[in-house]
């Protein structure tokens, strides 16, 4: 699949893929007065399960885990439940867990079940609520990171002490199409855009085209497309015939940094996009500027 190179991060090196890099911290979160069931898992275990309990615990800020201190181990047969003692901390499957429950100050008012519904803490008397302990993750955005390797960083995961989220990249589905190709060309002279054949590798007549200059210069003129933000064409009725004549709107920036526009009539084919006659101002492609042509269908 062809990709658009990212230039996120204000001048950092380009890369095929981009992520948001965050610092993160786990904090302990407790919800007192729980009067509803808390499911540890909704999957039936079909076997006895271990649960752990203690009068004290510690919290690991690095992993977001609650760790019971000197826990006692017990087992719940499948299809059964137990009523834990008052004022104790409970975890299931392991003494270190992301979820922990503290029972109410009166024993026998809630039950820990292991049955076909899963493993869950069930309140039997709402007058005796328990406390639910969970971890809360706080992300602080640092910067964008790019790489040519898709697996360089996780999508929604931790690596090297930081949290990463994949940044969505340009894809044809954003425009309602299924196929996309990205190709480049660099003219050797300042050349009128019209009547010039530009190859693309889409393999069929494009229905949507973006042409952009990959390098934006600070000095602009109205007629040079070196400073195009983008030029686009929407050709939804493209057929399988050899070529389609369609309008093409180019947007560029003038010396006063105000937007300008121009129009071209273009011919399309399955292998080349050819510029047609200009509508108003003549448009030139600037020598030495690398243009990217993005085609979709």
């Amino acid at each position: 699949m062809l990709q658009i190179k990212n230039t996120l991060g204000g001048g950092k090196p380009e890369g095929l893929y981009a992520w948001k890099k965050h610092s993160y911290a786990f904090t302990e979160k407790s919800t007192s007065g729980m009067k509803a069931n808390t499911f540890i898992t909704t999957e039936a275990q079909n076997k006895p399960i271990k649960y752990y309990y203690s009068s004290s615990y510690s919290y690991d800020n690095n992993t977001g885990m609650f760790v019971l201190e000197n826990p006692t181990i017990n087992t719940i047969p499948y299809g059964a439940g137990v009523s834990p003692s008052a004022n104790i901390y409970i975890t299931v499957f392991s003494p270190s867990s992301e979820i922990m429950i503290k029972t109410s100050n009166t024993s026998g008012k809630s039950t820990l079940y292991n049955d076909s519904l899963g493993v869950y803490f069930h309140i039997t008397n709402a007058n005796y609520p328990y406390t639910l302990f969970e971890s809360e993750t706080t992300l602080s955005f640092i910067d964008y990171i790019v790489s040519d390797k898709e697996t360089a960083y996780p999508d929604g995961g931790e690596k090297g002490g930081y949290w990463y989220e994949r940044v969505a990249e340009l894809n044809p589905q954003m425009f309602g199409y299924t196929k996309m190709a990205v190709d480049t060309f660099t003219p050797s002279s300042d050349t009128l855009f019209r009547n010039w054949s530009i190859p693309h590798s889409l393999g069929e007549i494009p229905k949507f085209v973006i042409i952009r200059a990959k390098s934006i210069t600070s000095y602009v003129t109205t007629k040079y497309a070196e400073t195009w933000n983008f030029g686009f064409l929407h050709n939804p009725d493209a057929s399988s015939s050899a070529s389609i004549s369609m309008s093409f709107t180019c947007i560029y920036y003038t010396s006063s940094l105000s937007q300008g526009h121009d129009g071209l009539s273009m011919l399309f084919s399955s292998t080349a996009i050819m510029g047609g006659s200009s509508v108003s101002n003549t448009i030139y492609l600037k020598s030495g500027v690398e243009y990217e042509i993005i085609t979709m269908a």
Partner: protein
Amino acid sequence: MKYKQIEDNILVAIGESKAIGEEQTEITSEEYNNILSVIHNKPEDTETIIYKLNAETLEYEPYDRPEEPVIEPTDPVIDSIISEVASNGY
């Protein structure tokens, strides 16, 4: 693949594409970089002279600057699209 495009013995462009047409010729990365280096050192055009790249010698040669064509709008649909883009900014 990298390619060069030649028209009437003028090397008009280089580029990169997975598919090329009859007007393009596949080249190596080394040749691509060599041509790109020449392009980046193109002489400045003047009021009366423009420079084009000779495909055989890879040297820029001067040509008389042609008159710019005056193109009149011919399609009212295109005009309306342009007006809409200009007013909406997209």
